[in-house]
Protein backbone atom coordinates (compact mmCIF):
# COMPACT_ATOMS: atom_id res chain seq x y z
CA UNK A 1 0.00 0.00 0.00
CA UNK A 2 1.43 3.34 -0.97
CA UNK A 3 0.23 6.86 -1.63
CA UNK A 4 3.01 8.64 -3.45
CA UNK A 5 3.44 11.87 -5.34
CA UNK A 6 6.62 12.70 -7.20
CA UNK A 7 7.62 15.85 -9.01
CA UNK A 8 10.41 15.05 -11.45
CA UNK A 9 12.57 17.33 -13.57
CA UNK A 10 13.80 14.40 -15.63
CA UNK A 11 12.00 11.99 -17.93
CA UNK A 12 10.43 8.81 -16.61
CA UNK A 13 9.29 5.47 -18.00
CA UNK A 14 5.51 5.13 -17.48
CA UNK A 15 5.38 1.37 -18.08
CA UNK A 16 8.13 0.48 -15.67
CA UNK A 17 6.77 2.86 -13.05
CA UNK A 18 3.36 1.24 -13.46
CA UNK A 19 4.82 -2.24 -13.05
CA UNK A 20 6.61 -1.09 -9.91
CA UNK A 21 3.40 0.50 -8.66
CA UNK A 22 1.43 -2.69 -9.20
CA UNK A 23 3.73 -4.43 -6.71
CA UNK A 24 2.52 -2.01 -4.01
CA UNK A 25 -1.15 -2.75 -4.61
CA UNK A 26 -1.47 -5.86 -2.48
CA UNK A 27 -4.64 -7.72 -3.21
CA UNK A 28 -6.23 -4.96 -5.34
CA UNK A 29 -7.69 -6.44 -8.52
CA UNK A 30 -8.17 -3.18 -10.40
CA UNK A 31 -5.49 -0.73 -11.48
CA UNK A 32 -6.50 2.28 -13.55
CA UNK A 33 -3.91 4.61 -14.96
CA UNK A 34 -3.55 7.64 -17.12
CA UNK A 35 -0.58 8.93 -19.07
CA UNK A 36 -0.63 12.50 -20.32
CA UNK A 37 1.82 13.44 -23.04
CA UNK A 38 2.77 16.69 -24.75
CA UNK A 39 0.71 17.02 -27.87
CA UNK A 40 2.18 18.71 -30.91
CA UNK A 41 -0.78 20.85 -31.93
CA UNK A 42 -0.72 21.14 -35.72
CA UNK A 43 3.01 20.55 -35.57
CA UNK A 44 3.39 23.89 -33.83
CA UNK A 45 4.23 23.07 -30.24
CA UNK A 46 7.89 22.23 -29.80
CA UNK A 47 7.94 21.80 -26.06
CA UNK A 48 6.34 22.59 -22.76
CA UNK A 49 8.17 24.16 -19.85
CA UNK A 50 6.62 23.50 -16.47
CA UNK A 51 7.21 25.24 -13.17
CA UNK A 52 6.14 24.15 -9.73
CA UNK A 53 6.29 25.80 -6.32
CA UNK A 54 8.39 23.28 -4.37
CA UNK A 55 6.59 22.34 -1.18
CA UNK A 56 3.29 23.94 -2.13
CA UNK A 57 2.81 21.81 -5.25
CA UNK A 58 3.50 18.56 -3.38
CA UNK A 59 1.21 19.52 -0.53
CA UNK A 60 -1.64 20.26 -2.92
CA UNK A 61 -1.26 16.90 -4.65
CA UNK A 62 -1.11 15.07 -1.34
CA UNK A 63 -4.33 16.76 -0.26
CA UNK A 64 -6.00 15.73 -3.53
CA UNK A 65 -4.92 12.13 -2.89
CA UNK A 66 -6.41 12.34 0.62
CA UNK A 67 -9.67 13.61 -0.86
CA UNK A 68 -9.69 10.68 -3.28
CA UNK A 69 -9.09 8.27 -0.41
CA UNK A 70 -12.08 9.71 1.42
CA UNK A 71 -14.29 9.24 -1.65
CA UNK A 72 -13.17 5.78 -2.75
CA UNK A 73 -11.70 2.71 -1.04
CA UNK A 74 -8.22 2.82 -2.58
CA UNK A 75 -5.36 0.43 -2.04
CA UNK A 76 -2.64 2.60 -3.58
CA UNK A 77 -2.15 5.80 -5.55
CA UNK A 78 0.81 7.03 -7.57
CA UNK A 79 1.17 10.45 -9.16
CA UNK A 80 4.24 11.41 -11.14
CA UNK A 81 4.36 14.88 -12.67
CA UNK A 82 7.10 16.42 -14.75
CA UNK A 83 8.51 19.88 -14.34
CA UNK A 84 11.16 21.51 -16.51
CA UNK A 85 11.28 21.13 -20.27
CA UNK A 86 9.20 18.36 -21.81
CA UNK A 87 9.32 17.65 -25.54
CA UNK A 88 6.40 16.73 -27.80
CA UNK A 89 5.37 13.10 -27.28
CA UNK A 90 7.01 12.78 -23.88
CA UNK A 91 4.94 11.94 -20.79
CA UNK A 92 4.11 14.85 -18.47
CA UNK A 93 2.00 12.99 -15.98
CA UNK A 94 1.21 9.49 -14.78
CA UNK A 95 -1.66 8.79 -12.40
CA UNK A 96 -2.29 5.24 -11.21
CA UNK A 97 -4.92 4.13 -8.73
CA UNK A 98 -5.56 0.66 -7.35
CA UNK A 99 -8.72 -0.64 -5.72
CA UNK A 100 -10.62 -3.84 -5.18
CA UNK A 101 -13.13 -3.06 -7.93
CA UNK A 102 -12.66 -1.19 -11.16
CA UNK A 103 -15.24 1.56 -10.63
CA UNK A 104 -13.29 3.04 -7.70
CA UNK A 105 -10.03 2.75 -9.64
CA UNK A 106 -11.40 4.46 -12.78
CA UNK A 107 -13.24 7.23 -10.95
CA UNK A 108 -10.40 8.14 -8.62
CA UNK A 109 -7.91 8.22 -11.50
CA UNK A 110 -10.26 10.50 -13.45
CA UNK A 111 -10.79 12.69 -10.36
CA UNK A 112 -7.07 13.11 -9.73
CA UNK A 113 -6.44 14.01 -13.37
CA UNK A 114 -9.12 16.68 -13.15
CA UNK A 115 -7.34 18.08 -10.09
CA UNK A 116 -4.00 18.05 -11.87
CA UNK A 117 -5.42 19.83 -14.92
CA UNK A 118 -7.21 22.62 -13.08
CA UNK A 119 -6.01 23.18 -9.51
CA UNK A 120 -2.56 21.64 -9.18
CA UNK A 121 0.18 24.22 -8.66
CA UNK A 122 1.92 24.08 -12.02
CA UNK A 123 2.53 26.73 -14.63
CA UNK A 124 2.92 25.64 -18.21
CA UNK A 125 4.65 27.53 -20.95
CA UNK A 126 4.12 26.26 -24.45
CA UNK A 127 6.61 27.22 -27.09
CA UNK A 128 6.54 26.89 -30.83
CA UNK A 129 9.12 27.60 -33.50
CA UNK A 130 8.62 31.34 -33.19
CA UNK A 131 7.18 32.28 -29.82
CA UNK A 132 5.41 30.93 -26.79
CA UNK A 133 2.65 31.50 -24.28
CA UNK A 134 1.63 30.61 -20.77
CA UNK A 135 -1.37 28.30 -20.87
CA UNK A 136 -4.28 28.07 -18.48
CA UNK A 137 -7.08 25.50 -18.02
CA UNK A 138 -9.56 25.14 -20.88
CA UNK A 139 -13.25 25.62 -20.13
CA UNK A 140 -13.57 21.85 -20.65
CA UNK A 141 -11.16 21.27 -17.76
CA UNK A 142 -13.31 23.35 -15.43
CA UNK A 143 -16.43 21.55 -16.68
CA UNK A 144 -14.80 18.17 -16.07
CA UNK A 145 -13.96 19.15 -12.54
CA UNK A 146 -17.45 20.31 -11.55
CA UNK A 147 -18.68 16.76 -12.17
CA UNK A 148 -17.23 15.74 -8.82
CA UNK A 149 -19.22 18.22 -6.74
CA UNK A 150 -22.44 16.70 -8.02
CA UNK A 151 -21.74 13.08 -7.18
Amino acid at each position, binding site marked *: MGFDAEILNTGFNPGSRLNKFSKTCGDAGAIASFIGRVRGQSGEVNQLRLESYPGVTEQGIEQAIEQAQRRWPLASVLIIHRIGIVAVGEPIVLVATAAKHRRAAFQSCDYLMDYLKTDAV*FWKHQSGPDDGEWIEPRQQDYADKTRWSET
Partner: protein
Amino acid sequence: MLKIYYFGRLGERAARREENLVLPEGVTSISTLKTWLDRSHDLGGALHDKSVKTMINQSLVHGDIALQGNEEIGFLPPVGGG
Protein backbone atom coordinates in the same frame (compact mmCIF):
# COMPACT_ATOMS: atom_id res chain seq x y z
CA MET B 1 15.56 39.06 4.47
CA LEU B 2 12.47 38.43 2.35
CA LYS B 3 12.56 35.59 -0.14
CA ILE B 4 10.32 36.36 -3.10
CA TYR B 5 9.17 33.99 -5.85
CA TYR B 6 7.58 35.02 -9.15
CA PHE B 7 5.87 32.13 -10.90
CA GLY B 8 4.73 31.55 -14.46
CA ARG B 9 4.23 34.68 -16.52
CA LEU B 10 5.13 36.85 -13.50
CA GLY B 11 8.67 35.49 -13.64
CA GLU B 12 8.93 36.60 -17.24
CA ARG B 13 7.46 39.99 -16.47
CA ALA B 14 9.79 40.54 -13.50
CA ALA B 15 12.75 39.08 -15.41
CA ARG B 16 13.52 36.91 -12.39
CA ARG B 17 12.03 33.81 -10.79
CA GLU B 18 13.19 34.68 -7.27
CA GLU B 19 15.05 37.28 -5.30
CA ASN B 20 16.21 38.04 -1.78
CA LEU B 21 15.25 41.45 -0.49
CA VAL B 22 15.78 43.43 2.71
CA LEU B 23 12.42 44.91 3.65
CA PRO B 24 12.56 48.31 1.93
CA GLU B 25 11.95 51.48 3.90
CA GLY B 26 8.26 52.29 4.13
CA VAL B 27 7.20 48.71 3.24
CA THR B 28 5.30 47.28 6.18
CA SER B 29 2.72 44.97 4.61
CA ILE B 30 2.09 42.72 1.64
CA SER B 31 0.13 45.45 -0.10
CA THR B 32 2.85 48.09 0.22
CA LEU B 33 5.40 45.45 -0.84
CA LYS B 34 3.43 44.74 -4.03
CA THR B 35 3.34 48.43 -4.85
CA TRP B 36 7.07 48.79 -4.17
CA LEU B 37 7.96 45.75 -6.33
CA ASP B 38 5.62 46.88 -9.06
CA ARG B 39 7.40 50.19 -9.30
CA SER B 40 10.87 48.74 -8.83
CA HIS B 41 10.53 46.05 -11.54
CA ASP B 42 8.14 47.91 -13.81
CA LEU B 43 5.42 45.22 -13.53
CA GLY B 44 2.53 47.35 -14.78
CA GLY B 45 0.31 46.46 -11.82
CA ALA B 46 0.66 42.71 -12.38
CA LEU B 47 1.02 41.84 -8.68
CA HIS B 48 -2.21 43.65 -7.82
CA ASP B 49 -4.12 41.77 -10.53
CA LYS B 50 -7.06 39.90 -9.04
CA SER B 51 -6.01 36.64 -10.71
CA VAL B 52 -2.67 36.63 -8.88
CA LYS B 53 -2.64 34.79 -5.56
CA THR B 54 -0.21 35.57 -2.78
CA MET B 55 1.36 33.10 -0.39
CA ILE B 56 3.28 33.98 2.75
CA ASN B 57 5.41 31.14 4.07
CA GLN B 58 3.58 28.83 1.66
CA SER B 59 0.10 29.70 2.95
CA LEU B 60 -2.45 31.57 0.86
CA VAL B 61 -3.26 35.01 2.24
CA HIS B 62 -6.06 37.41 1.42
CA GLY B 63 -6.15 41.13 2.08
CA ASP B 64 -3.32 43.10 3.60
CA ILE B 65 -0.94 41.38 6.01
CA ALA B 66 1.87 42.94 8.05
CA LEU B 67 5.38 41.75 7.22
CA GLN B 68 8.28 41.10 9.59
CA GLY B 69 10.91 41.07 6.85
CA ASN B 70 11.91 37.41 7.08
CA GLU B 71 9.03 35.84 5.15
CA GLU B 72 8.97 33.68 2.07
CA ILE B 73 6.57 35.29 -0.37
CA GLY B 74 5.15 33.70 -3.51
CA PHE B 75 3.20 35.42 -6.28
CA LEU B 76 1.10 32.90 -8.19
CA PRO B 77 -0.72 33.56 -11.47
CA PRO B 78 -3.53 31.09 -12.39
CA VAL B 79 -2.31 27.50 -12.18
CA GLY B 80 -2.96 24.38 -14.19
CA GLY B 81 -3.98 23.98 -17.78
CA GLY B 82 -2.83 22.04 -20.74
